[in-house]
């Protein structure tokens, strides 16, 4: 080693060799990332090549059918919309409230640790387990049946950890001085939260909600388990009515299908014609989930830039 250090030529050779390895590694690193990106490109490309030709107005406005040329995704996207609506109504208040408690109220003790480990664990529970939970609990113990309400609540439980974690991170980013300022003028803890903490952390919370919604939109397994895979050619009862009392909640109890399940149904059919339909449904699904996700990424980027405490 010492000998080598005395010899400038040897050092130069060593540097050269090591630089070559480094270049090789940079190539490997770019290659690994390229694999991931190539997957996305191939995936989107394959779907577009196969499915784009049949993506027209009729595809969106026809119910599924035994004839692949007639089949559309009307019931699927309406179902997805209604299920997501229930998911948001259930998951957002619950998740945000839990996040607020854990950041602003919870005393640092074993209970907080326990809840924290629980949430981390729930985030890692496979989605199909939520399906089993829903089947055993919502469908048979609460007797909600295989309805939109069951599906919405199942997905709400699934995305709850995402919203809780996002809320906590958004709240944690608010400097302590804001809270102290509010307390100093006599605000209670809840007043501080409602008037300052929540409005300021809205950006982060919104990002989390959007990410959660995009996940719920694409989720299939738990809904298969609760029995959503039905050939549905009718729409649920309309939530808005022409006559008094104008709103109706009968749709909550309606059977349903959603986009990912419609796609799964088509993929698993042996006839090749249905695979074209699957590709077209896949495009719609990708546009929805990736679009919603891109929105979240943009929002996070903007909020990070605009807020200077």
């Amino acid at each position: 080693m010492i000998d080598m250090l005395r010899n400038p030529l040897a050092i130069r050779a060593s540097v050269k060799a090591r630089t070559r390895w480094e270049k090789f590694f940079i190539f490997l690193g770019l290659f690994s990332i390229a694999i991931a990106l190539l997957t996305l490109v191939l995936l989107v490309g394959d779907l577009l090549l196969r499915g784009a030709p049949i993506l027209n107005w009729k595809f969106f406005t026809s119910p599924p059918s035994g004839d692949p040329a007639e089949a559309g995704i009307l019931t699927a996207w309406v179902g997805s919309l209604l299920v997501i609506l229930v998911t948001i109504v259930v998951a957002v208040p619950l998740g945000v409230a839990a996040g607020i408690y854990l950041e602003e109220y919870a005393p640092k003790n074993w209970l907080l640790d326990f809840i924290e480990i629980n949430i981390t664990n729930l985030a890692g529970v496979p989605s199909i387990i939520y399906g089993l939970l829903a089947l055993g609990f919502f469908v048979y113990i609460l007797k909600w049946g295989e309805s939109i309400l069951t599906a919405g609540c199942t997905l709400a439980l699934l995305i709850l950890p995402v919203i809780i974690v996002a809320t906590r991170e958004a709240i944690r980013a608010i400097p302590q001085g804001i809270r102290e300022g509010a307390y100093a003028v006599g605000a209670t803890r809840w007043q501080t939260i409602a008037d300052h903490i929540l409005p300021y952390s809205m950006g982060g919370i919104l990002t989390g909600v959007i990410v959660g919604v995009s996940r719920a939109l694409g989720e299939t397994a738990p809904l298969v388990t609760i029995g959503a895979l039905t050939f549905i050619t009718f729409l649920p009862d309309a939530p808005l009515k022409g006559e008094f009392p104008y709103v109706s909640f009968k749709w909550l109890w309606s059977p349903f299908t959603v986009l990912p399940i419609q796609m799964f149904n088509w993929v698993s059919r042996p006839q090749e014609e249905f695979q074209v339909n699957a590709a077209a449904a896949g495009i719609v699904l990708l546009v929805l989930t990736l679009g919603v996700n891109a929105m979240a990424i943009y929002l996070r980027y903007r909020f990070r830039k605009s807020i200077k405490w």
Partner: protein
Amino acid sequence: MADQPLAPRIELPIPAKARQKRIWVERIIGSLLFVAAFSSVAITTVIIYILFSETAVFFEKVIEIHHESLVAALAEFLTTTEWSPLIEPVTIGVWALLSATITTCVIASLVAIPFGTIGAIYLSEFAPAKVREILKPILELLAAVPTVVYGYFALLFVTPLLQKIILAVQKWYEPGKEPWEYYELPGFNMLGAGIVVGLMVIPYVMSMAEDALQAIPSHLREGSYAMGATRLQTALRVLLPAATSGLIAAYILGLARAVGETMIVAVAAGLQPKFTFNPLEGAATTTAFIVSASLGDLPHGSLEYQSIFAAGIMLFFVTFLMNVAGYFISRRYREVY
């Protein structure tokens, strides 16, 4: 004049009654928020309760059918390799499902761990800040692709591609045979499904591994550079060992996702329970079995109905142990520095 107080009495801004009300409102809101936070614990409890109670009924019924003890039924469950709770004669060897789960998982980790680690090192140590800013959101997008779309990709893109590659390799080694003499990869196989599960897991592993590398304090890097090491030497000999526990946590959590992955394997690996570790065959994983059984519109209370909970409880405990291990390992590496 003299007995007048020096200053006028200060009126509290809020009358006592209103203050009392405020205190009560605070308490109620506080407890509502606590209930919301505690709901996560309630969810876990309900999951465990449902899984356990239905599995208990499952074993009761199996004991009734086979006229054997609980120990014998559990032994059959955990040590035999035939799984057909849906057709007579009823057999409940869970290894038929676990073998496929393990096989797809191993293939997935062979894809996700090398690419994920190398990509993470590149992003953390080599990539210019601008490149990283662009690449990270794109990787996040990759993690957002619905798994049923990945399933489609595995069945209709990756498997046909693999079929062509395998055929070409055989023709290269043994040219001149009749077309039907060459081996053909079946349409449902664990290789294609496993590869796509691996591709799906890459972004998770990459981002967690990158976090682990970023958590290493920079004086370790600076020390290494000061000794004349290149970035690559620093990464491989200083940062990787320092981040070992974080990387292991990333791998475990990534693998837990592969174990729990459902739609890719249900679409592309087949739905037939079969004891095999051969990736060129099709077989049902634990998750795929649950999906295929659910597709048949399970009558409540039947043995079929309970069998998916018995399969589910295995899955829950395997992923639970992995998640807890990952959580504690990653927690430890954060405390080291």
